[in-house]
C-alpha cells in the first residue's frame, strides 16, 4: 500500500506491478498448458518414438527371437540385404500400385458422391447413415465380404460380370487378386474421402458458382475453374491422409490372399519377417524402411501440393 503514501511514484509502480502479474499469469498459463498436454504427448511418444528408436538399434543386429543368444552386430548389413532383394522391390511396387490406383479411384468416386450429397435435400439422414457404414465397418469384415464375393465357389461376382467366365479364379493369379484387394480397400475407404471432400465443397461459395454460371461458364468449366481450385485444401488433406493410409495396407491382404500370388505389401512383408519368421533384426530394418518410405511419400505429396497451390495463385 505504499502507493497511497507516495503518490508521485505510484503510477509507474502500478503499471510495473501489472506487468509483473501479467507475466506471472502468462507463466502460469504456460505451465498449465504444458501440464495439460503432457499426458497425451507422453502417451503418444511412449508407443512410437521409443519403439522406433529401438527398431533403429535392433536393425543393426542379426537377431532371431528363437535364438536370442546368437545376437550379433552386423552394421548396415540388414539394410543391404533388403535393398538388394528383389522381393523388397516387388512389394514396394505392389504397395505403390495399390496406393496410386485406390487413391485415384477414390478421389473420382468420392468427389462424385460428395457432389450428390451436397445437392441432396431430402433423405439426407439415410444417405449419411449408409455412407458411414463402410467407414465404420471392420476392415477384416470388408475383406471377408469381398473375398467371398470374388470366390470361385460362393461368389456372385463371376455371375454378374458380363465378360468374366463363371469358372474364373480371381485369387489364382497376381493381378486379378490385386484387383479384388483394391476393390475391398476402395469400397471401405471411399466414404471417408467423400465426407472430407463434402466438407471442402461446403466451403465453396454458392455465389461464385452462380456468378460463373451467369457469365456463361459450362458445368464442366465451373467444375474445373471454380469448384476444384476453391477446394484445394480439402483435396490435399483427403489425398494425403488416404495415400499414407493406403501405403500401410495390411488387413485386406492378410485376409484375402495372405500375400500369395505375389500380392504382398511392404507392411505384410515386415509383419511376416517379425511375427512368423522371428527375424527381429531383419524385421526392424524393414520397419525403419517402411517408416522412411512413409516420410518420403508425405514429403513428396506436401511438396507437390505446394507447387500446385503456388501455380494456382499465379494464375489468379
Amino acid at each position, binding site marked *: 500500500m505504499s502507493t497511497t503514501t507516495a503518490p508521485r511514484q505510484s503510477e509507474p509502480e502500478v503499471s510495473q506491478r501489472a506487468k509483473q502479474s501479467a507475466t506471472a499469469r502468462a507463466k502460469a*498459463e*504456460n505451465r*498449465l*498448458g504444458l501440464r*495439460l*498436454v503432457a*499426458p*497425451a*504427448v507422453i*502417451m*503418444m*511418444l*511412449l508407443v*512410437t518414438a521409443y519403439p*522406433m528408436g*529401438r*527398431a533403429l538399434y*535392433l536393425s543393426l543386429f542379426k537377431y532371431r527371437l528363437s535364438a536370442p543368444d546368437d545376437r550379433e552386430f552386423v552394421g548396415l548389413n540388414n539394410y543391404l540385404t533388403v535393398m538388394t532383394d528383389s522381393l523388397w522391390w516387388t512389394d514396394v511396387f505392389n504397395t505403390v500400385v495399390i496406393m496410386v490406383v485406390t487413391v485415384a479411384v477414390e478421389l473420382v468416386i468420392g468427389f*462424385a*458422391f460428395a457432389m*450428390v450429397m451436397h445437392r*441432396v*435435400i*431430402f*433423405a439426407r*439422414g439415410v*444417405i449419411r447413415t*449408409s*455412407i*458411414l*457404414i*463402410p*467407414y*465404420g*465397418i*471392420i476392415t*477384416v*469384415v470388408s475383406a471377408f*465380404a469381398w473375398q*467371398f464375393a470374388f*470366390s470361385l*465357389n460362393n461368389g*456372385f461376382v463371376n*455371375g454378374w460380370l458380363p465378360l468374366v467366365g463363371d469358372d474364373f479364379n480371381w485369387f489364382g493369379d497376381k493381378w486379378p487378386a490385386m484387383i479384388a484387394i483394391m476393390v475391398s480397400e476402395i469400397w471401405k475407404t471411399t*466414404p471417408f474421402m467423400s465426407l*472430407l471432400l463434402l466438407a471442402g465443397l461446403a466451403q465453396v461459395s*454458392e455465389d461464385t458458382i452462380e456468378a460463373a454460371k451467369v457469365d456463361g461458364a459450362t458445368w464442366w468449366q465451373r467444375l474445373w475453374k471454380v469448384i476444384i481450385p476453391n477446394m484445394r485444401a*480439402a483435396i490435399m488433406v*483427403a489425398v494425403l*491422409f488416404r495415400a499414407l493410409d493406403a501405403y*500401410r495396407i495390411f*488387413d485386406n491382404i492378410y*485376409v484375402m490372399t495372405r500375400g500369395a500370388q505375389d500380392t504382398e505389401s511392404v507392411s505384410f512383408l*515386415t*509383419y511376416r519377417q*517379425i*511375427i512368423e519368421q522371428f527375424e527381429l533384426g531383419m*524385421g526392424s530394418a524393414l*520397419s525403419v524402411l*517402411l517408416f522412411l518410405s512413409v516420410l518420403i511419400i508425405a514429403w513428396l505429396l506436401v511438396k507437390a501440393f505446394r507447387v500446385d497451390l503456388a501455380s494456382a495463385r499465379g494464375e489468379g
Partner: protein
Amino acid sequence: MKSKIGPSTIIGMLAILVWCLLPIAWIISLSLKPEAETAEGSPQFLPKSWSLENYQAVLEDPLFQRALINSFGISLIATVLSVIFATFAAYAIARLDFRGKRIVLSIALAIAMFPVVSLVGPLFDMWRTLSLYDTWPGLIIPYMSFTLPLAIWTLTAFFREIPWELEQAARVDGATAWQAFRKVIVPLAAPGVFTAAILTFFFAWNDFVFGISLTSTTAARPVPAALAFFVGPDQFNPPTSTLSAAAVVVTIPIIVIVLIFQRKIVAGLTSGAVKG
C-alpha cells in the same frame, strides 16, 4: 440454395445406396445360407434355403464370445482414457497460450500417419519383457497412442467453436482456470467429446495389426483377429456361412452407433480435417 434435384442427383443417390449397402446385403445373405449350401458352392446372391443355424453356432462358440468381451472391454477402456487425455490436451491447444503448441499438433499429425506395422517388432519384444504381451493393457496402450491424434484434432476443432466469453465471465467471478474448465467448458464441450469418443471407439474396434501380433491366446485376442483365425474343422475350406454370421454380429454395434449418431460423426470427421 436454389439447386433443384435433377435426375442425375437421384441416380447418384441410388448409386451411393447400392455402393454402401450391397456388400452388407451380400454378407447378410451369405450368413443365412446353411453351411452345407456354401460347402457345396452357392454362387447365387440369395440363399436357396434360409436358416439361422450359423448365428446359433457363432453365438454359442466360446472363442467368439471371449473375443467379443475382449474387443468391447479393450476398446471401451482405450476410448475413455484416450478421450480424457485428449480433452486436456485439446483444451490447452484451443484455449491457452503456451510454448510448444505447434510441436504437440505436429506430433499428433505425424503419429496419425505412422505406419503401425513398423512398431510390431519392437512392441512385440518390449511387451514380452514387460509381460504385457497377450494382456488387455498390452492392447489398450497402443490403441490409446494411435487414437489420441484423431481425438486431439477433433476436439481442438470443437473447442475452437465454443463461446469462450462464458469462461471469462467465470474467471471474472473468481473461478480459477481449472474451475472455469471443469464447470463451464466441460458441459459445453460434451457433444464434441462424445463425437471424439465414437471415432476413437471405431478405430479401436477396427484394429487388426496389434490384435494379431500382440496376442497369442483368447486372453486378449480381439474380434478382428479372432475372425481371421476362425477356421472350421477343414483348414482348406473355411466355413463361409459361419464366418459371415460372425462378421454380421460384429458389424451390428457399428450400424447401431451410426444410426443413432450419424450427424455427430460426420461433423466430427470433417471439422478436424478441414480446419486443422
